[in-house]
């Protein structure tokens, strides 16, 4: 695609058709991501119904306050992302750059909190495969819980890192003035991706952190 924003690719008849195609294409891709994470959520449900006590005991080892803060951080980043897309739609390039930076910062804060949690788990020997130790009789099902904890939050973190790098590319393009009110598609698409990653965390947080807290 050439540099001037208004021109559309040769296979399209006009830019409305191009935008529509990109929009649908992104949603189809997000459909594949729903099924991708869905496989892990199924594994989680499969084992939680089989070992409810083990999952409750293991979940109580997670720091609920760090989890809640992380959820709030990610929701803020979704908010700033939405504002960035909105700014793009009305052509305010400077605002787009500010909100994109804010989203990146919040994303990095999230990853920071996440990796401190990982370090804590490493300290407490709760990482399956690395000398997993768990007091009490529910050690096996606790190890399964932590396997899913690391698999799901790890895959989510990978998607966060991809998201942050895509956002940096967006900022670079925005500074080169590539976006305008009539051509804002890349910002919208990355926005959809970012909101999706936030939705995955919205489901991860209660399922991993809030299991059996009421049992004390």
């Amino acid at each position, binding site marked *: 695609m050439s540099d001037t924003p208004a021109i559309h690719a040769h296979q399209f008849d006009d830019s409305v058709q191009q935008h529509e195609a990109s929009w649908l294409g992104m949603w189809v891709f997000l459909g594949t991501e729903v099924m991708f994470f869905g496989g892990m959520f199924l594994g989680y449900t499969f084992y939680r119904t089989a*070992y*409810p*006590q*083990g999952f409750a005991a293991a979940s109580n080892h997670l720091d609920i306050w760090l989890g809640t803060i992380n959820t709030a951080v990610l929701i803020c980043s979704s908010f700033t992302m939405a504002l960035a897309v909105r700014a793009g739609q009305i052509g305010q390039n400077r605002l787009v750059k500010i909100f994109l930076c804010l989203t990146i910062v919040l994303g990095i804060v999230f990853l920071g909190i996440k990796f401190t949690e990982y370090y804590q788990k490493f300290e407490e020997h709760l990482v399956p495969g690395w000398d997993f130790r768990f007091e*009490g*009789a*529910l050690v*096996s*099902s606790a190890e399964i819980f932590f396997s899913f904890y690391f698999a799901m939050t790890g895959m989510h973190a990978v998607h966060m890192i991809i998201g942050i790098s895509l956002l940096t590319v967006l900022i670079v393009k925005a500074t080169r003035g590539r976006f305008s009110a009539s051509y804002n598609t890349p910002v919208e698409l990355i926005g959809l991706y970012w909101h999706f990653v936030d939705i995955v965390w919205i489901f991860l947080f209660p399922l991993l952190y809030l299991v059996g807290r009421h049992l004390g």
Partner: protein
Amino acid sequence: MFGPNLPLFPEQASTLAPRVDALLYFLLAVSAFFSLLISISIVVFAIKYRRRSDSERPPLILGSLGLEIFWTAVPLAITMVIFVWGAKLFFVSFYPPPNALEINVVAKQWMWKVQHPEGKSEIDELHIPAGQPVKLLLTSQDVIHDFFVPAFRVKKDVLPGRYTTLWFEASKPGTYHLFCAQYCGTQHSGMVGRIIVMEPPAYATWVGGGGTGGSTTAAGQKLFQTLGCATCHLPTDSGRGPSLVGLIGKTVALQNGRSITADENYLRESILEPRAKIVMGYQPIMPIFKGSVSEEGVLQIISYIKSLTPQAGAQGKK
């Protein structure tokens, strides 16, 4: 090359075999009918309506709703008949009759270890009496295997960490193939054995003679004492653990409000991982026995628990 060693149909050596073969014949008939119907009509149409000249213009036929409904409804009806017939057969071959002779089978990478209740054990061979239902309790020590006897038309995967059951009633004495039908590694094709079906009296002498150790139930009772189970699990409910008398088949109320039917898998899990399912009204104080009891040991304890019938621990089966 031809003759006896070119069999075209497996032997029918169990009560289930004729019933499975009956469904097979029905399926063969349906398949032959539809295959011939389609291939003959193709050949006939291809010849009858072959292109005679390039300027031929066949008539416009868009389709017919009646025909479409017809060849949707008829296949649907046939498939439903097949489904119900198959499901009933599966249901019958799933649940063993109560008076079945219980034999434990432990599968290990590339061999079958069989344990008779009277104490005799075999490797890669299974002697059973003809005319009596036999229930196999299957478990694996490593990967998934599969206990497959073509002549009986039965097959069941053998899973690690869990019991699966399989039952059949041999109808014809003889020796039949036993195959492992789930890929389990290098010697998967070597993990074969023989099922030897004997006349009941011959079986009784075979199994009675030279019993190596006591019966599995006796071995289970010994383990039940040495591991200290008896100190908590008393015949009445007064002990620190629930009474195990007549437990098999009973519905047990659990602490988290759910209830579960006590089967071999529940017993095995409660021995190896007691905290997984805690009975209502009891403390989670039972120690873990995983790692301190072998697969065979758990099977022996379970056969002992099954022998605890309400007639004050009378030995043997009804």
